[in-house]
């Protein structure tokens, strides 16, 4: 029985890691613990034994999460996605050029294919490197968070105390620690001297936790005789025996759970992959179809390859990848200015798709600072002045003139053990360092705010403390004695309100001291309950002006065995305090709700406090009936599935669930809760339960965002579609597991992320709609070449000039588009239906705008041909002779005879004309795609990057067409301007059509035009 070691677990499954740890190291007697780990209370273990255990268990360090090799990421950026298609096209170009070389030994070989292969390979490589650079740049931000383990600690081995590296600790070691240290491993306390630890990073409990040698709970996280790895020691000192190291600690299990939980692809990544699949299928299907068709028409294989290559290149929207990257990067920069640090670029868009946010309470919705909020004196509950979190108090002092208030304030000022560490009056009061526990710190700040900077210390100097009985759990009060004047002393006391009242025989009200009556007791009880319902912590205050005859100046008070009265005191009032909501959080929650996002509170705090805060920040609306699942209900069997509206799941809008009840709740019941209730609070939750909650929301189709700051939040942060860590109070593990970090720990910053995320999706849709449009005018020339035998109106290089040249900047410029006016009034995006590319977008881009552009292209093509002597009817089925380079006397409609070179020169002018026509109509499409619903007038022209891109595109087109060497390499020639003007009517037609279309969408939502064209 004794002396056995726990078996080392191997091959831990995910389900095992999800379960809470069940250990008994905190329940067994210390002697049994010593025997179990073969250690000693005073001497620790031997050095040799420590070495053996270190070799057996490994170092006291967390296993780092697996990271993808950067070379694999680089390869993915260059060869993945659409780049794969472009590499196919480049290979086909190279093959075509090789075939040309092999078939024509003597004559000069056209270098078009060689140029195209080089251009394609270069552009794809540059694009891939750009994408890789952007992602890598963001990923490097986490390097500074790598080290989270305290470096050294004191350990006793062979009876000698020494300082060693924390990673060398083993189970059974006797370690010593004190205030300011971090706990080096999971350990059981064997000696405690005023020991208090901060477990907020682990459990979310914001109050310092007393630690001693007593086992107070079966729950390892609750009992007082255990200290957990990586928590902070705030006060006192202690010793303990290590019971877990490295990955076997609570934090280690959470970290392992974090690394094993697969976050899955982000919604944006899913959409991009979906989009790539669609376009790839279309490209290869059409390409292969035309390849076969070309062979059927008895074109040579080289020509067939050219057709295939042209179709593929034309279908690939090369601009979409840099648009995504620039859009996400730009948004990350914008959000960085608003205190949102984006670690994973794609997570920004995920936030825009979020339909549920599971938010922590302490530090996220609240300020993580106990603050005095209410007073009760003179028979009334009164609000206190609000302490500005980031500024000096400049407001009006409400109750300064009231005598009862002054006495209450005096008692609060004197009866305290907290003090400001150093006078730093230039620092805002809320941020000054105050020693003491949370309650006393809150009262101290309040008193300083009312009295003025430094006046509390001055007041205490006038009335110095003579004696003190500190707070303890037996008495439930603390008292101190101060000289009120040279002749008289005063006793001040504070503590649990009901305890204080029992010790009082009189109370002070409206300037008079009255005897306690039943009426007063009733009022007190009512006030106490009211303040309690706010979820606030309430303290009672009383005093006693001592008799001058019995306790003259110089009287020696005995604090151990009081020789002064502790009864018949005078009750002064109540002071209540709570961790208040952050400024802006209620409005932020309201904005989220208007945007269709449900905000859910998931906290380790008490249900009453949680509910009170939820009411204040509108997570639970006022006057809404709340179903409470806090206590076990004997009528219900928790293990069975429960249905909404029956049993414990009452048909109300809000629900508060205790973590203990969540433990026994069946998965189906939890699913019913998250489906039907829309104002939800989970209180007293454990780390595994938070993950359980996230998975429940995800299982019903929600896109879940989770906020958290503790190590316990790491699995949920990783599992969530977007994990949001706190930048100030968050632990390194939570920051590592999260996708985004709020640098100011403010929930309101999430709203910025939601808006930016939705904007990303909107802008990506617009960019895709714009980019896909040019595919049709790029494909139809090849179709006409094969089907109708027309001379080729467009070359592949011209297509590349559009996709990689003139279309690239405008496509990317959509990332800078301002939001439409209703972006935060829309419902969250349903990933099942609201795809990045849907049928209507394809129809709009391809069959509507694209078709108009194709008409424009062929119009200019035919007019150019007519101007040079080729009528449309004479162009049919002439491509075979046209491309025969040995026919130098092909006759046109006027009987003129054209040589091969002159025909090719005219054809290159056709390329240029068609190219320019697409550029002009794409300008119109660019402005048409600025909005999906609003009019262009409503949207405005604030996107200067987009406006500049039009100018750039114009100059680029002119440069490409008219620069001597450039147009020779690219195979185009300039044309006369009057032919280019033929594109303008079609550009106008596109703009007019789209404006009318959007008018109908706005006027008749749900109408036919809306169903047909709204993408």
């Amino acid at each position: 029985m004794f002396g056995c070691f726990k078996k080392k677990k191997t091959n831990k499954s995910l389900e095992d890691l999800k379960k809470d740890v069940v250990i008994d190291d905190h329940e067994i007697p210390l002697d049994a613990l010593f025997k179990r780990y073969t250690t000693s209370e005073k001497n620790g273990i031997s050095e040799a034994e420590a070495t053996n255990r270190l070799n057996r268990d490994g170092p006291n360090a967390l296993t780092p999460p697996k990271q993808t090799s950067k070379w694999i990421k680089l390869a993915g950026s260059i060869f993945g996605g659409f780049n794969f298609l472009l590499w196919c096209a480049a290979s086909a170009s190279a093959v075509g050029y090789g075939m040309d070389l092999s078939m024509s030994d003597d004559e000069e070989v056209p270098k078009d294919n060689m140029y195209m292969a080089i251009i394609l390979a270069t552009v794809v490589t540059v694009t891939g490197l750009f994408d890789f650079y952007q992602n890598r740049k963001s990923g490097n931000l986490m390097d500074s968070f790598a080290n989270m383990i305290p470096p050294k600690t004191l350990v006793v081995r062979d009876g000698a105390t020494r300082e060693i590296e924390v990673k060398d600790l083993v189970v059974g070691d006797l370690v010593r620690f004190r205030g300011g240290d971090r706990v080096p491993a999971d350990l059981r306390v064997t000696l405690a001297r005023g020991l208090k630890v901060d477990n907020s990073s682990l459990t979310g409990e914001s109050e310092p936790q007393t630690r001693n040698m007593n086992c107070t709970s079966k729950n390892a996280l609750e009992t007082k005789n255990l200290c957990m790895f990586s928590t902070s020691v705030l006060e006192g000192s202690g010793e303990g025996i290590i019971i877990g190291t490295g990955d076997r600690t609570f934090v280690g299990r959470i970290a392992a759970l974090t690394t094993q939980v697969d976050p899955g692809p982000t919604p944006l990544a899913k959409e991009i992959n979906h989009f790539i699949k669609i376009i790839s299928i279309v490209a290869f299907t059409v390409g292969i179809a035309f390849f076969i068709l070309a062979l059927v028409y008895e074109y040579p294989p080289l020509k067939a390859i050219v057709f295939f290559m042209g179709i593929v290149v034309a279908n690939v929207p090369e601009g979409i990848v840099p648009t995504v990257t620039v859009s996400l990067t730009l948004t990350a920069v914008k959000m960085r200015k608003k205190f949102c640090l984006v670690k994973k670029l794609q997570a920004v868009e995920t936030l825009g798709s979020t339909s549920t946010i599971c938010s922590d309470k302490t530090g996220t919705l609240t300020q993580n600072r106990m603050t005095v909020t209410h007073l009760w004196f003179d028979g009334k509950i009164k609000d206190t002045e609000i302490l500005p979190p980031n500024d000096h108090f400049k407001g009006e002092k409400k109750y300064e003139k009231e005598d009862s208030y002054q006495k209450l304030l005096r008692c609060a000022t004197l009866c305290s053990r907290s003090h400001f560490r150093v006078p730093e009056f230039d620092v805002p009061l809320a941020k000054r360092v105050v020693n003491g526990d949370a309650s006393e710190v809150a009262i101290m700040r309040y008193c300083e705010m009312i009295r003025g900077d430094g006046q509390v210390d001055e007041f205490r100097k006038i009335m110095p403390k003579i004696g003190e009985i500190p707070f303890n759990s037996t008495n439930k009060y603390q008292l101190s004695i101060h000289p009120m004047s040279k002749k008289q002393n005063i006793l001040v006391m504070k503590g649990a309100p009901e305890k204080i009242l029992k010790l009082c025989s009189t109370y002070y009200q409206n300037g008079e001291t009255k005897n306690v009556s039943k009426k007063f007791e009733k009022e007190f009880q009512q006030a106490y309950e009211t303040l309690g319902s706010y979820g606030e912590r309430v303290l009672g205050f009383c005093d006693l002006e001592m008799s001058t005859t019995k306790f003259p100046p110089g009287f020696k008070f005995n604090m151990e065995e009081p020789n002064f009265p502790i009864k018949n005191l005078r009750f002064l009032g109540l002071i209540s305090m709570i961790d208040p909501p952050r400024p802006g959080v209620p409005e932020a929650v309201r904005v989220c709700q208007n945007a269709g996002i449900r905000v859910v509170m998931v906290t380790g705090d008490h249900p009453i406090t949680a509910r009170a805060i939820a009411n204040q920040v509108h997570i639970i609306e006022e006057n809404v009936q709340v179903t409470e699942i806090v206590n076990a209900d004997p009528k219900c069997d928790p293990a069975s599935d429960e249905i909404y509206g029956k049993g414990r799941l009452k048909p109300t809008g809000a629900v508060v669930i205790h973590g203990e009840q969540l433990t026994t709740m069946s998965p189906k019941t939890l699913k019913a809760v998250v489906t039907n209730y829309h104002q939800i609070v989970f209180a007293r939750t454990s780390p595994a339960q938070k993950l359980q909650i996230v998975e429940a929301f995800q299982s019903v189709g929600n896109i879940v965002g989770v906020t958290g700051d503790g190590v316990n939040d790491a699995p949920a942060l990783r599992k969530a579609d977007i994990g949001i860590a706190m930048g100030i109070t968050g632990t390194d593990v939570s920051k590592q597991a999260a996708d985004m970090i709020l640098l100011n720990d403010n929930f309101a910053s999430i709203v910025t992320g939601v808006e930016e995320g939705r904007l990303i999706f909107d802008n990506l849709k617009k960019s895709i709609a714009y980019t896909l449009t040019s595919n049709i005018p790029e494909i139809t020339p090849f179709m006409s070449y094969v089907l109708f035998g027309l001379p080729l109106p467009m070359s592949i290089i011209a297509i590349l000039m559009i996709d990689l040249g003139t279309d690239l900047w405008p496509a990317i410029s959509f990332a800078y588009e301002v939001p439409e006016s209703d972006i935060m009034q829309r419902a969250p995006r349903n990933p099942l239906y609201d795809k990045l590319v849907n049928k209507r977008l394809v129809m709009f881009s391809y069959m509507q705008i694209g078709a108009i552009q194709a008409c424009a292209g062929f119009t200019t093509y035919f007019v150019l041909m007519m101007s040079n002597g080729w009528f449309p009817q004479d162009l049919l089925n002439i491509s075979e002779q046209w491309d025969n380079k040995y026919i130098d006397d092909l006759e046109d409609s006027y009987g003129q005879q054209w040589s091969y070179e002159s025909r090719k020169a005219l054809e290159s002018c056709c390329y240029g004309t068609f190219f320019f026509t697409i550029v002009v109509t794409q300008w119109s499409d660019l402005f048409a795609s600025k909005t999906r619903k609003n009019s262009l007038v409503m949207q405005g022209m604030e996107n200067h990057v987009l406006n500049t891109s039009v100018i750039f595109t114009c100059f680029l087109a002119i440069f490409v067409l008219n620069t001597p060497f450039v147009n020779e390499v690219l195979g185009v020639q300039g044309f006369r301007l009057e032919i280019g003007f033929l594109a303008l009517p079609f550009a106008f037609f596109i703009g007019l059509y789209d404006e009318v279309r959007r008018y109908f969408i706005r006027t008749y939502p749900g109408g036919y035009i809306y169903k047909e064209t709204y993408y």
Partner: protein
Amino acid sequence: MVGSNSSRDDSQQRKSFLDKQNSSKTAKSRVGSSEKSKSSKTEKSTQQSEKKTERSTANTTIKSEAPSKKLITQQSTASIQSVGRRGPKMSDGTEFDAGPYGYIFSFIFLFVLWGLATMLAIALVWFNFSRLDRQYPIYFGDGSFLGGAPKVSFDPNPRQFLEDGTKNAMSWNIYEFSTYVNYLIRYKQVLKKYSGGIGKQKVKKEEMCKNQTMTRENACKFDRLTDFGECTLSLDNLERGFGYSKGQPCIMLKLNKIVGWVPNLSPSKNKTKCPSGDLCCGQGIKFKCTSNADVKFEYFPKTGIPTCYFPYANQGGYEQPYQMVKLTNITVNRETTIECAPEDSSLNTLASGKTNEARFHILMTKNRPVETVG
């Protein structure tokens, strides 16, 4: 043994202590059985427990006192409020459901849109078409893609027949008619473009160019029977093999037709006296051919293409002038490259800067077919 007993006694004492606390708590605050594990918590826990107890009691009282109707009303109100505060619902795609016949309207919509775009395109093309002159394109001559200098071309061009291979080569066997029949067919096709070329065709009334000046509207006949010697393009000569059967083929050399182009020849030193009225007399456009072998060239007519056949203006019945070159002394079984270019400097270079020449290859063989005895 003693130590073990001592440990057990301590355990029992602790249990007793817990029981006492539990009893005390139960008596004072009526904490339920679930609170046993929390009995030793600090003051905060105690306060919270008491709050819970009081709250639970208060809730129970309120519920027991309220009539059932009020409860129902409150629940309804809460439900309405709850629904109203949910914000916009997530889309499930139903608002885009156009019904089973929705695709019909989609097609109609597309056809209307395409119709409008197509009509706009046709209108623009027709408008530009209607502006065109019947005889002159908008862009021609110098500065256009066709250029200001006509390209030299030749017939018969073997690539016209898309034969196998990529080289521009004429190959034939003088003893096999089938090897050069395509070239003769090509000549027949060319002959169709000239008046009197086919016996059945009715002779037009146009005069010869030497007797009538060519105008913009009317063309004149090309004199293809004078001064061409053995290379006269006629059915009789084609029937006789047109030189291919003898190993001395005739190749037609000509300049591409360009609307409005007029030759601008350099003045010739040797002025020939011309009878009055003969507009085609004088030096014309001459070609000079070279080869990479010892091939002899004989030109018909020797004076070249007369300038009286220009300019071309898409006149009806226009007959393109040409010059014939007869190839002799061709080396058998050797591929010979022949290049023919105009002699005049104004025609030497094309607008693209390249040499204005026609290049082709010939490969002549003399393989007698093996005759079967018997």
